[in-house]
């Protein structure tokens, strides 16, 4: 079992790096957009927006959340839908690759992708705008872990629920852009309309972003958001895992 998980994780990581769309959305696009935003807003705090935080200090944890969203909304669903569509899952099942082994390998790829994306973001922001280090490393690490698990479960759910690879690509990108624009990785939340803020509250990314920002900016661990993320994680897992067992 462990040997299979190791081999599968390693190969899945290589397959991830060979998939241009996922790599762009995980490793290239977030730093690029962050750079543009930093050029526009700088890192000087303005009491009217970003809850008084420096814009780059605000955006870096938000974009770390966005990397997790890229993998959970686009990378993982497209990958799983393609596996299902092409019969790869059937072949794995016939070869007795267990569902836990499959879950473990995908989680590994998600962690690796988020860590790599975060390192790129932080390095860029540190070098160009001297972004502040997290006030609570532990709090950020905790929220990041939970955020990754939340988007992993979301990704598995989308991957088993969407009928085809093309559907997963289209719907995944739509969700990604929507969440990015309203959940705090786009315009400052203060300038959003009440409707947009309500939409944001209904998406997981907003909660992941706040959970990352609060310990980063010295506001402590946000237990409300922690609870919401845990809820999304549990509901999505409860729906996705049985479906995954059935639909392979």
């Amino acid at each position: 079992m462990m040997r299979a998980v190791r081999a599968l994780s390693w190969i899945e990581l290589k397959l991830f790096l060979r998939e241009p769309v996922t790599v762009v959305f995980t490793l290239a696009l977030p730093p690029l957009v962050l750079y543009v935003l930093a050029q526009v807003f700088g890192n000087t705090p303005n009491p009217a927006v970003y809850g008084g935080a420096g814009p780059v200090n605000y955006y870096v944890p938000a974009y770390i959340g966005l990397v997790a969203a890229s993998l959970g909304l686009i990378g993982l669903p497209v990958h799983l839908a393609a596996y299902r569509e092409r019969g790869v899952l059937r072949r794995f099942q016939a070869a007795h690759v267990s569902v836990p082994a499959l879950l473990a390998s995908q989680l590994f790829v998600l962690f690796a992708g988020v860590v790599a994306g975060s390192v790129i973001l932080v390095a860029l922001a540190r070098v160009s705008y001297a972004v502040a280090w997290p006030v609570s490393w532990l709090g950020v690490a905790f929220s990041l872990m939970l955020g990754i698990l939340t988007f992993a479960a979301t990704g598995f759910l989308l991957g088993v629920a969407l009928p085809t690879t093309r559907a997963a690509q289209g719907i995944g990108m739509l969700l990604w852009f929507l969440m990015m624009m309203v959940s705090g990785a786009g315009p400052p939340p203060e300038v959003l309309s009440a409707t947009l803020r309500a939409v944001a509250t209904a998406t997981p990314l907003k909660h992941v972003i706040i959970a990352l920002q609060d310990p980063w900016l010295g506001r402590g661990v946000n237990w409300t958001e922690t609870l919401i993320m845990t809820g999304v994680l549990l509901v999505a897992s409860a729906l996705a895992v049985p479906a995954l067992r059935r639909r392979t």
Partner: protein
Amino acid sequence: MDALRVEGLYKRYGATTAVNGVDLVVPEGEIFGILGPNGSGKTTTVECAYGLRAADAGRIRVFGADPQSDPDRVGRLVGTQLQDSALPDRITVGEAVHLFAAVAGGPVDEARVLVKWGLTGKRRAKFGSLSGGQRQRLFVALALLGRPRLVFLDEMTTGLDPGARREVWRLVEEIRREGTTVVLVTHFMDEAERLCDRVAVIVNGRVRAVGTPAGLVGQYGGGLRVRFTAPLDLDRAKLAVLPGATSVDRHGEVCEVRGHGALVTALGHQLTIDGHGDVELHVHPASLEDAYVAIVGAATEVR
């Protein structure tokens, strides 16, 4: 011991009954063919046999083990090449062998596997770049990594060019030479005739005939067909009573006589006596395809 025993297998999907009481026995060492029209339940039968699906009723034993209650043991005994299934386009041949070796457990000399199946030169090639024949070679190599005693090969030559099909046939014979039992699902009669020791014809979820290809041809093939351009004054009544003749038909200028055994000699003799010694006889022995069409036709009429 029998490699595979299926008794009274029954499986439905919603309102459709896919498999309706299938019985099969495959002794160890055999290449056993499963033939049948699309949607007749062939693939469902083999998927139940290696435990990918649970049967609604019936008993399945793979070397005495039940795929549902003892999946680990059956997993070690069985290898599969699945219909309509692929690998990720960007996985390399070497990676695929490494991955499936890790899943199969037990020591595998990956380099030797690649040499044996002629894939060494393709070790770094991506799955998506392989030809149909190379893909099937890889699938067979993967199916055999765990040294199974029984392999299921489901429509492995569909979509291959004639050269690649023959290449795959050689692989199947190679597998059997090493003592592995093979269950082969196919649409191609020439494939079944060439490879299989015995075949079963499944129609609408039931086994309609089982036997050696030659046995089925003898029983259901309808014997010989002899065709020739009919002379104007041909006496059909005389031909109908020839030894071995079962029917005489005339379609325009062409006369077709069906029958068995001594028919050809008797027919030639009679035609010569009647002064038609210059007629050219075209003799078509019955093939597995004739037998198959007759079996499927009879089964669908009954319905």
